[in-house]
């Protein structure tokens, strides 16, 4: 480097400087534009939303505490009833958790098959991979509420429509996450099993599942946590469980705010409980993977 003649070096550096400056300008321009677009989107988006809302953001801000205050003050006045109410609504909570658990199980099984059938290298019918991928994309795209409401019409209210709806969505969502894992599986063991004349299901069972199980379980736990919320929300639109009770209590208003509070405590407690348990367990599962 020191040997290069000075003028040549200078020329050479000038060129690099110029092209780098051009790159910097371009990057600043793009960066600035991105920022500008983002700010414009946020500000105008906020204005549109504010405008199309019944109450304005700034007018409503000071009222945020009103509703919780109403609920809490009534619940406080009737605090003696709370334990009894919590017991009363416990079965509804069990139903909500059951919906989440069953749909997570069914969804995980469905997602498992969809992902195995949709992953290159593992698929039983390689030519159908795009088909299975589209199927899981669509299953994932359908919001639970859509299927639940349609099924309520056909099957009547209760936990089953919610269960099916959540299971379908879960299968799609897990299929995607599972695929990401199984794409990275080591195919050596699969090849080894194939050479002994193992069937497709035996290859998957022995060659793939042991490898991916920790990640799959971890994703399934995360999904279970999400599904508890989903099942509560679906209850809100008519599919049984705690959400249904909460909606009725909240809709009725004063007089049943103690019930609303009791249900809320149950729901909040459950969500936080499973959130903590699953995140702890998930960390354990994936930590073991690191080594």
């Amino acid at each position, binding site marked *: 480097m020191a040997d290069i003649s000075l003028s040549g070096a200078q020329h050479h550096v000038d060129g690099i400087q110029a092209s780098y400056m051009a790159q910097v300008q371009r*990057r600043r321009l793009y960066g600035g534009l991105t920022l500008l677009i*983002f700010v414009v*989107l*946020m500000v105008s*988006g*906020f204005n*549109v*939303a*504010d405008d*199309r*809302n*019944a*109450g*304005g*953001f700034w007018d*409503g*801000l000071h*009222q*945020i505490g*009103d*509703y*919780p205050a109403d609920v809490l003050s009534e619940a406080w006045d009737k605090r003696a009833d709370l334990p009894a109410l919590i017991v009363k609504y416990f079965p509804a909570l069990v*139903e909500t958790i*059951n919906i989440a*658990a*069953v749909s997570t*199980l069914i969804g995980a099984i469905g997602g498992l098959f969809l992902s195995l059938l949709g992953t290159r290298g593992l698929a039983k019918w390689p030519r159908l991979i795009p088909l299975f991928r589209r199927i899981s*994309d*669509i299953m*994932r*795209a*359908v*919001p*639970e*509420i*859509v299927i639940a*409401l*349609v099924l309520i*019409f*056909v*099957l*009547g209210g*209760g*936990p*089953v429509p919610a*269960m099916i709806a959540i299971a379908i969505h879960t299968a799609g969502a897990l299929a995607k996450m599972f695929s990401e894992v199984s794409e990275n599986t080591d195919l050596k063991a699969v090849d080894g099993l194939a050479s002994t004349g193992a069937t497709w299901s035996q290859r998957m069972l022995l060659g793939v599942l042991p490898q991916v199980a920790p990640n799959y379980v971890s994703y399934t736990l995360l999904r279970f946590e999400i599904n508890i*919320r989903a099942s*509560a*929300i679906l209850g*809100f*639109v008519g599919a049984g469980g705690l*959400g249904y009770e*909460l909606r009725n209590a*909240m809709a009725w208003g004063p007089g049943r705010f103690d019930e609303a509070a009791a249900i*809320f405590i149950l*729901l*909040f407690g459950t*969500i*936080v409980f499973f*959130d903590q348990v699953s995140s702890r367990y998930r960390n354990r599962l994936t930590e073991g993977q690191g080594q």
Partner: protein
Amino acid sequence: MTTIDLDATKFEAEKLFARKRLIGFGIPSVIAVYFVYIFFAFDLPGLAGRANMENAVTLASDSWSYKVHATRDNRSGNVTYAVEGERKGTYPEGQRPDWVRGDEVITIDLGGDIIVRYLPDNRTEIEIPGFQLIEAQAEGRTVTTNLPDDLPDWISASDRRVGITTPEGRITLTGARTEVFNYFPGWELFWFTLDSPYYGQSLATILFGDQIDPARGNITGAVSDWWNNTMWRHKDVAWAIGETILMAFLGTMGAALIALPLGFLAAKRFSPLMLLRAATRRLFDFLRGVDALIWTVVLARAFGPGPLTGALAILITDTGTFGKIFSEALENVDQKQIEGVASTGAKPLQRYRFGVIPQIVPVLLAQIFYFLESNTRSATIIGAITGGGIGLMLTQAIQTQKDWEEVAYYIILIIAMVMLMDWFSGWLRAKLIGRKT
């Protein structure tokens, strides 16, 4: 190896397999037992009885077909024709569908040789191939017919009401009115309502043909009539989809902006006070635990129905989620880079900007865009609760339990919307993370 040793090894292996079998059978049987419990807890045997296949058929057929009502008011004798029986779909005075003929005797041809005739004096004749000619007379509250006593299951009759269901259409007779429902495939009036001059015109005519409405150009007029179609309300649907995406966008981005600084407070390495860190973490847990559903209800009082309320509900919940994810990402940052920047005498903010941000940006963006897509779905649901967006339209359309073609339309739009957002956020993520910061 000696025989004794080998036997011991065999015995060990047998024990091992016994244990594996126990687990192998144990887990599935626990799941199976649970499913059995659910089978009864959710009353699945009863469900089979309760499931209403007729509803399923109504739903399925209505979602891809429409019906035109031909209604005779038995008091006034007036006959009206309306698509889906709605006022907006009513044929203007003097117009009627081409499968209706006659003035004194109105002949309605349902197709498949099924003919209904509205005769004077509230009499009705129905011709169905392979069945006797049905004659009916409406008088006061009663309907008298010549129907025999044992009826096929597609006819339901009492002296107050007669209902006939055929593959071609449905006929109901009561004292007050006589109605024929003629079914057609497709989504009627999807493009133009009956009052639009462009109704029934072909695309070619509109694009290249003579000016239809003297006041407007063909294309502008057609687009505007379609956009303002009162049956399908394309404009409102577009707004609703926009509102839903807006809720997701504002909620996600707002949450990310708020969660980023809070994430620093909650991260072990950056928090100035342990107490503050613990408090921030609990705040995140609280925001997440309360759940978007309840935030929606709480905020509805303060801000009323609308997209802003939905956006704020998403924002609050996701602030908790992002806060947790961001602070975990922050706790995993590589100290070396921060030290490198610090050793040049950089100010604290500069240390964060160059030592920390570049490290967590990929994690952040990946999460933000993942949530953008999933929040589009949440926004649909939240909209159904707070009153905004496509979610509300969908739930309400389902609630009326008759506008299944609209339900089908909305479902297709929602799926398309979510898939689009999925694709878009994936594209943006690849674009931004792949780029230098």
